[in-house]
């Protein structure tokens, strides 16, 4: 897409008018939906709200809070996965579409390890200890998966146009999914039952234990990653390679090793997200990585690809939007079957952000030169 700065001053074409029309109508739908929702909440007999959707029931405060919390916890996982997309894009300039499968590998590893621990009786007797253990195993397995992927599939393609590793990554994605079917079978597999305190809502803010766990662990992982990237020598090398790998090499940085570290870190974050997914939904199948992967990619783009804070913000934005959006914006406008529209809303956010701000929330203008 041509940056808007380039188009300024040039005559507006039909396409420009069409884009403007899309922007205005997207904002209008959001604004109308929000207005109708607020009107409805203030007074359920409000004529505007009645006119917009005569059957609207509105939300109780508790329901709304529940939606926000589930959106934030879901979004935190998207954010964790998005970091991997964003970091790889930062150093290599291509989208690693197989990254969602690394997340699936993490969830699968957690499933296998936790079931083994449940058989041994440790899962019930020491839940937190078991959790730490499956996190460690999953993080290691996922880092290795990502590193092997880079070594086998992407490094031989270094220096090729970026479309080539991108297509390859789709192939790697199919490979990992099918490997999972061959090794573990095509049926969905369950995590062992979790303790009651994880399942029930707590008096503290009315949040389920699992969601508190997800939000806390995701926040801690992101802080660790931020520390590594922003405050350590390796992280400085990663940022240097991301900006100019030729000059980074001139500083004596081993570019290949730095790229391996980036894949390992991204894989670790995906492994973490996989475990959180397992604790939250307790079921995993070979295709588990697909939709969260695509949404996390959208999150990375929404936040501004290549930007770590952007990946987290994008993840939370998409998570909350797909959780809250259907009932707050679509329901008051009389759209039917809104609970089925989560995915549509998530991708509408992506399209909306691209229409209004093509470089994403925190995105800088992308470098013009082709980097691979």
């Amino acid at each position, binding site marked *: 897409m041509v940056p808007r700065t380039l188009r300024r001053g040039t005559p507006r074409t039909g396409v420009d008018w069409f884009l403007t029309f899309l922007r205005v109508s997207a904002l209008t739908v959001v604004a109308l939906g929000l207005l109708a929702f607020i009107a409805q909440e203030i007074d359920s007999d409000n004529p505007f709200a009645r006119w917009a959707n005569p059957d609207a029931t509105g939300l109780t405060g508790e329901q709304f809070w529940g939606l926000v919390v589930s959106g934030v916890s879901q979004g935190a996982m998207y954010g964790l996965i998005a970091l991997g997309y964003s970091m790889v894009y930062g150093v290599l300039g291509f989208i690693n579409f197989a990254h969602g499968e690394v997340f699936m590998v993490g969830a699968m590893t957690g499933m296998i390890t936790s079931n083994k621990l449940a058989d041994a009786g440790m899962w019930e007797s020491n839940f937190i200890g078991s959790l730490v253990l499956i996190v460690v195993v999953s993080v290691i397995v996922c880092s290795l998966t990502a590193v092997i992927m880079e070594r086998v599939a992407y490094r031989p393609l270094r220096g090729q146009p970026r479309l080539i590793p991108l297509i390859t990554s789709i192939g790697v994605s199919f490979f990992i999914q099918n490997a999972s079917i061959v090794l573990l079978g095509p049926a969905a597999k369950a995590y062992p039952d979790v303790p009651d305190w994880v399942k029930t809502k707590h008096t503290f803010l009315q949040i389920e234990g699992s969601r508190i766990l997800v939000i806390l662990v995701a926040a801690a992982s992101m802080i660790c990653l931020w520390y590594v990237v922003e405050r350590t*020598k390796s992280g*400085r*090398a990663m*940022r*240097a390679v991301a*900006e*100019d790998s*030729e*000059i*980074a*090499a*001139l*500083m*004596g*940085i*081993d570019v290949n090793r730095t790229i391996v570290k980036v894949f390992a870190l991204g894989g670790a974050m995906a492994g973490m997200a996989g475990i959180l997914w397992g604790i939250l939904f307790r079921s995993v199948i070979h295709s588990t990585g697909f939709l969260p992967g695509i949404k996390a990619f959208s999150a990375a783009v929404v936040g501004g690809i290549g930007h770590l804070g952007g990946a987290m913000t994008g993840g939370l934005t998409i998570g909350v939007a797909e959780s809250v959006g259907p009932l707050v914006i679509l329901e008051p406008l009389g759209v039917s079957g809104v609970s089925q529209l989560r995915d549509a809303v998530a991708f509408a956010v992506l399209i909306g952000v691209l229409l209004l701000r093509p470089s994403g929330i925190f995105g800088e203008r992308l470098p013009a030169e082709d980097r691979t």
Partner: protein
Amino acid sequence: MSTEHPDPAAGVGGEVAGGAAPLLEMRSVNAHYGAVHALADVNLAIYQGELVCLLGGNASGKSTTLKTLLGMLKPTSGEVVLDGEVVNDKPTSYRVARGVTMVPENRRLFKRLTVRENLDLGAYLRTDSQQIAADMERVFELFPRVKERLNQKSGTLSGGEQQMVAIGRALMAAPRVLLMDEPSMGLAPALVQQNFELISQIHEAGLTVFMVEQNANMALSIADRGWVLQTGRVVLDDTAEKLLAHPDLQASYLGTAEQ
């Protein structure tokens, strides 16, 4: 050529004894890009304490020479010798760790990183933290402006300040020989002047400098010796004064390079 290299000009830090071995040397180096013969039998020798320059127009092989010296391009024949050791097969990081550092053309700072991070990256291969801190202080002494801008993103600096950071970053590697790729490129005329003053300044502080330049007048005004490269061949090799007075240089080269 190493048999009769001219004495470096006065005021240079290191006295070069007659039999001293060069710090960095190219011995009949040939280099190719595919079928293109980029360097043909190039002989260069850089001695401790010198300020020398390699002159040439576009596509004369100047950048190829630098790439070969740094190990980014492997010569097809001949030897690159660093401090008496043939380093043909050694990677860039090996040569950087042993004192070969380059200030790239157009500065090429990490613009999204702070000035401090840029300087730290210059010392990436070093582990002697005390000496690194001392070298950082030396950079601040040379360029007080850099210290003021330490926590700013380097992309927000002015062109002149960026040039200081680029040189500072290279000095942080504790180089024994500093390679400068086209220091006058992409700078306003006033900054070019300032830049050449910076180069003589760090040279007078005792550093060996090898400069690659199109602007022959400017480069020869501060250099001790120079070579002129034409389509990958060294065509002239003499002291700065003699090169400036050389009829061939005046006729064929300076005519196009003068600013």
